[in-house]
């Protein structure tokens, strides 16, 4: 190789490398500045750094909110329905990974005797694997039990999207999406589609830690949250997105009958015919009133029904009122949540107009027979969490987290 050729090659090297080095250096510098700024602002684990917030009223009327930053759970208590909060406290358990974004988030519930119960999904070392975790406090949050794993299969597979209800007496009910069945099928070289709905209950306060796992349904959607409420007979009403036929994703309802021997018969609720071999990332909502009417909301993009729908049922889902369309489908209406309160039915959801995120509310004062006009009640400039309605003493509140902007709670 001549000296001239060597020089030409070196020159090409410099020409090729220099812009990249400059661009990369500039990019890295800017990235570092941004990351440093974000790190500094989140060093105190402020709630605005969290992607999700879970709120609930304790039996004594205190409002609790829980969030996750840096593999740690934090909580704050409000004595005035969310107007002001006491100092932030860390849930004093060892650090561990906690799923807390989009449809997945920690759950909190209370008994009548200062018991505070937490559950969450803990991602494991392999992609799409997680365990359902549980911890509780008998001294109103001063201390918490060492977290335990609820799924009892000892398999490195998916256990996620946990939902929890706790009775006044401390009976803990947990449901989640579980991949143990599909995991075993795939190990045998067989095809599997979706997850399964699993259930466990126990009463740690009374020394019962059994949490025996029970399969409730198979072939559920793998990436939508579950909704759960309790009916007037004390039975659990569970509402989730199921897979019917060839990837038709519809909502199903199961009332967990008190008669242990009864066959489990989930009922298909939505009939929008949304065929998708994928992830809708949109769970539904359910709330049971004093007359035992089940009020439900869901979102679909089927060829027979698109958008948010509300319907109710007086017979555990066997028959249904005609689904009512909620929100503006042309404004990205999505992520509905519902809560009944005496004869009021409140529904909230999000919309997006290309510039701002909006929180919308629609109310029925006659138990769902008719609804008033939809109203926008809040907005946000950057990304938003799903909205949820919680209630206390005959009054409903909406909880809406806006990452980087803050958590917002207000009476409906």
């Amino acid at each position, binding site marked *: *190789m001549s000296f001239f050729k060597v020089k030409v090659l070196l020159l090409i*090297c410099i020409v090729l490398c220099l812009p990249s080095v400059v661009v990369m250096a500039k990019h890295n510098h800017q990235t570092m500045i941004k990351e440093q700024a974000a790190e500094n602002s989140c060093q105190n684990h402020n709630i605005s750094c969290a992607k999700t917030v879970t709120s609930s009223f304790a039996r004594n009327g205190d409002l609790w909110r829980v969030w996750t930053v840096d593999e740690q759970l934090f909580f704050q208590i409000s004595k005035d329905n969310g107007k002001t909060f006491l100092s932030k406290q860390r849930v004093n358990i060892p650090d561990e990974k906690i799923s807390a*974004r989009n449809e997945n988030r920690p759950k909190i519930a209370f008994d009548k005797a200062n018991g505070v119960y937490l559950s969450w999904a803990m991602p494991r070392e392999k992609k799409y694997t997680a365990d359902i975790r549980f911890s509780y406090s008998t001294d109103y949050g001063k201390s918490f039990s060492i977290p335990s794993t609820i799924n009892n299969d000892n398999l490195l597979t998916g256990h996620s999207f946990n939902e929890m209800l706790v009775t006044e007496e401390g009976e803990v009910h947990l449901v989640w999406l579980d991949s143990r069945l599909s995991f075993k099928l795939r190990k045998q070289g067989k095809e599997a589609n979706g997850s399964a709905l699993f259930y466990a209950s126990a009463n740690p306060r009374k020394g019962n830690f059994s949490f025996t796992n029970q399969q409730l349904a198979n072939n559920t959607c793998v990436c939508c949250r579950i909704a759960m409420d309790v009916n007037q007979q004390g039975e659990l009403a569970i509402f989730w997105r199921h897979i019917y036929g060839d990837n038709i994703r519809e909502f199903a309802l199961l009332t967990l009958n008190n008669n242990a021997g009864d066959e489990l018969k989930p009922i298909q609720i939505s009939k929008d015919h949304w065929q*998708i071999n*994928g992830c809708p*990332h*949109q769970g539904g909502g359910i709330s049971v009133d004093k007359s035992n009417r089940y009020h439900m909301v869901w979102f679909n993009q089927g060829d027979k029904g698109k958008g948010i729908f509300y319907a109710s049922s007086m017979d555990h889902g066997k028959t249904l009122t005609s689904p009512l369309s909620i929100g503006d489908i042309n404004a990205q209406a999505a992520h509905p949540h519902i809560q009944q309160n005496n004869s009021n039915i409140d529904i909230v959801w999000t919309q997006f107009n290309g510039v701002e995120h909006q929180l919308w509310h629609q109310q029925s004062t006659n138990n769902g027979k008719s609804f008033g006009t939809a109203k926008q009640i809040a907005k946000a400039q950057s990304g*938003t969490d799903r909205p949820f309605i919680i209630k206390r003493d005959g009054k409903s509140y909406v909880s809406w987290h806006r990452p980087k902007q803050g958590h917002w709670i207000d009476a409906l």
Partner: protein
Amino acid sequence: MSKLMANLALYLFIFSISYTASANAASSVFTKSSFEEIKQKNLGKKWLMILWSVDCPPCFKELALIEKLREETPNIAVVIVNVDDNNETARERQQIINSFNLSTLANYYFADGLGDQSRYLIDKSWYGELPRSYFIAENGDFHGKSGLVKEEVIKKWLVPQEK
């Protein structure tokens, strides 16, 4: 000495080529202008844009399909866009891209907290269900499809068919 210099120059040349390639392959943030650039760059040919998330198991199957197709036909026109809009998932995102050998493919990600804005830029009628695939015709027309797309459909769109 001149042989040593020549070898050094060759090594540097190879390094610079690979460095430039890897630098260009880094994920870029998805913006209005980058979207326009992508569309302009691919105008006049059939191409595919796949939207995916680290929280979407079926998306992995579609990324695996693209990996397989690229082994057979390396220059297929595919752009992948990660929709997580979450700085916390950046490392995971890159690991997944690398695991499917897609780091040399044009790939973008939604900026933290701007998921809805970015989605709106692409398609006002798309609600975020995944995977989402856009089949873009030579004239720039977009045809969106939600859910895992079959291999033969992608192949028919991207790979010139023998007559």
